[in-house]
């Protein structure tokens, strides 16, 4: 792409909170990055009050702290961000598992996170393995203006550190924000509870992102480093795929690409973006 990136003019996106950085990584000296096509500076003062400033307009913008991350809004800030009730549970391990720059659009990263069919090919031997490639029917629908995919199942070769055989693993997926996605997965040691793993995507431009990995787990044994390393290994396998997708912006016309039944969650997601009138980081349907 030539020229400078287009500053976002899409009200559906401007009027949302967007992730900028993990709280422990904020500095008093400040750092620079990009958000929605504009250069930003961000940091924290001595009193641990974080700030974000647009460098194109030199305006300070509203910020908030949620789930261990700093969020900013360029438009009319909504009263709240989506909720993750599990994050309030006292025994949860809440971690930022890395903020990784990827040359793709935010919706492409969200769709990849929703996708189970690539497990045997991209996360071979970890989240899936040939020939157990089938994506069995699941339910995806809008619930309270969020995308939910329920009853998802996939064969996982190494379901837990203790397991010596593969088994079907249950997943629930949730897209509460056009650029944020979460998954819920049974806790191996306590099937009544579910680990939450999230991807909060900072749309730096339409075609570059910083993916903030969020972990909210019940795990008393694995070290912070171990949890982070696992998430980063998985994401590092996704990154080259994401960077080899064309076009980078998500095409919303269903006939630019060929969806299959396994892509039901992506079908609902794309239609949701269309209904919201999102135009940033997508190729709108003709």
């Amino acid at each position: 792409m030539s020229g400078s990136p287009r500053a976002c003019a899409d009200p559906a996106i401007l009027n949302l909170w967007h992730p900028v950085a993990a709280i422990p990584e904020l500095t008093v000296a400040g750092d620079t990055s990009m958000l929605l096509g504009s250069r930003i500076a961000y940091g924290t003062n001595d009193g641990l009050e974080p700030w974000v400033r647009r460098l194109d307009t030199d305006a300070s913008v509203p910020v908030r702290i949620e789930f261990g991350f700093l969020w900013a809004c360029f438009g009319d800030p909504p009263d709240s961000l989506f909720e993750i009730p599990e994050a309030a549970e006292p025994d949860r391990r809440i971690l930022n598992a890395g903020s990784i720059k990827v040359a793709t659009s935010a919706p492409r990263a969200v769709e990849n996170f929703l996708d189970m069919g690539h497990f045997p090919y991209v996360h071979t031997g970890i989240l899936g393995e040939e020939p157990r490639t089938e994506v069995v029917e699941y339910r995806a629908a809008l619930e309270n203006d969020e995308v939910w995919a329920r009853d998802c199942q996939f064969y996982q070769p190494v379901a837990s550190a203790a397991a010596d055989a593969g088994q079907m693993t249950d997943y629930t997926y949730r897209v509460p924000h056009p650029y944020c996605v979460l998954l819920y997965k049974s806790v191996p040691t306590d099937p009544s509870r579910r680990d939450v793993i999230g991807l909060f995507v900072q749309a730096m431009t339409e075609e570059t992102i910083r993916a903030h990995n969020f972990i909210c787990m019940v795990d008393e044994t694995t070290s912070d480093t171990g949890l982070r390393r696992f998430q980063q290994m998985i994401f590092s396998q996704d990154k080259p795929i994401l960077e080899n997708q064309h076009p980078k912006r998500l095409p919303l016309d269903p006939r630019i690409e060929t969806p299959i039944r396994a892509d039901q969650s992506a079908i609902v997601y794309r239609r949701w973006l269309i209904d919201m009138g999102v135009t940033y980081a997508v190729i709108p349907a003709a």
Partner: protein
Amino acid sequence: MTDDNQILDADRWFPIGRTDDAPFRHVHQAKLLGRELAVWRADDGFVNVWDNRCLHRGVRLTVGMNEGVELRCLYHGWRYASRTGGCTYIPAHPADAPAQTICNRTFPAVERDGLIWTTLGDNGPHEPPPEAGLDNAFALRSLPFSAAPDLVRRHLEATDSSARFFVQPVDAHECVVHSVLLETPAADEQISTWRHHADTLTGVRDEVEAIAARLPTPEPLTVALERIEPREQGVPMPRARTDAQLRVTIARKWTTATGVVALELESIDDPLPAPQPGSHIDVHLPNGLVRQYSLTNRSGDAANYVIGVKLEPESRGGSSCVHDVLREGDVVAISAPRNNFTLRRDASHTTLIAGGIGLTPLLAMAETLHDSGLSYTLHAFAQSTDHLAFADRIADLGEGAVTHLGASPAETGAALDTILAARDDDSHVYICGPGPMLDAARTNAEAHGWPDASVHFEYFRNDTEIDDSTSFTLSLARSGLTLSVGAGETILEVLRSAGVAMPSSCEQGACGTCVVGVVSGTPLHQDVYLNPSERAAGDRIATCVSRSADTELVLDL
């Protein structure tokens, strides 16, 4: 368009690499006029030039795997056949045959003068590039230039060199210069010759790029994203007797076993659609009869179709016509392949049981599993060695194939009992053969606790055996047509058979392309495209998979 810009004319042929850029099992990434291309050579030598984009999620095919006859996408393992670019397998849905509309954009390729050439033009057949007659050509180093292709071409024309230069216009401000020598130098001079020409060309590049840097940089070429256009042809249509759009010649006819001839069918015009293991074609015989025969081709092998036809003693004119009338060189009309006997490729072990000529679809399956390194056993039953069709191909399977010769009905039953005794939850069995053998296999499978979903029988749909209890009437409000949808038929197929032009794409109820309005009647939704409120409203239906809950459905067509 000025003469200077002719080099950017998409209808022309251009080199996109050297022949050695497409070695065994490699996928080469090239770019021509702003369009990215995946270039790969199949094991039979055929050079494929495709859009560098998987049709599913747009991932570059150049990061995928060249598996010899098929290219496999790295992201979800979709497989595309050499020559046609047709999708042969979608691992996320192992039991479903991919729609034939899922076909990659292909471009023609020729190899000459040490280079691979293609054209992006849409304007009918093209003359290939003029041959320089460099049979003995020696390809030199190919060098990228950051300059307008035509500027480079003009400088090369003024360059004194014994090499011939060919410009690949990569983009408006980018090109690659390929150079070949008319004669291959002696072995001990090749390195010095190579170096000499590389130095010369590098000198030209420095000069041209310095000039180009002072000129305004042209805008990059834009390539429009193409929609995956629905096609009328190649769509599975179980009942369509008029669906004989392909013309083939009989390239070879030979006796492959006692009473069995094999026919190799070669396309006259376009490449044949990619065969999937288990698929069959309608063959329109010169006496007016239409017969269905399974393809024996392994997955993705679309070079020529090969079928096997047994002379039936009670022939009503079908098999005897094939045996006695058809000759090599004859032209025959056939349908595109249809697949009602889809091979899953996610089983822990696949058992294939073939009786007599029932071998044909199972041979295609065995070779496909063999190529993929998946666990399988082919059990081929025949009266004698002489009655075993395609014995050479069975022998090539090695330990994967077991032959059972001259077994009596009782011995066959006992053998089936032994074969079917071994199973686990993830194994599947495919059976094709004479009726009594199918019955015996079905009984045995039940006795050994095989779930129905794991036992697959080949059958050809029969018009007279449609189950009326699940059929319904389809009325078209605007055109006044009244049609009948039988069991095993889709609304989409029936509409097309009646001549209604219907767009479709995925044919799995996922993309919404074939959705039409419902005037009255209650749709039985089986798609995943419509949302719950649209389903509840009942005023739209995905015609590729959904049906009617009532006896009549009235569509807004």
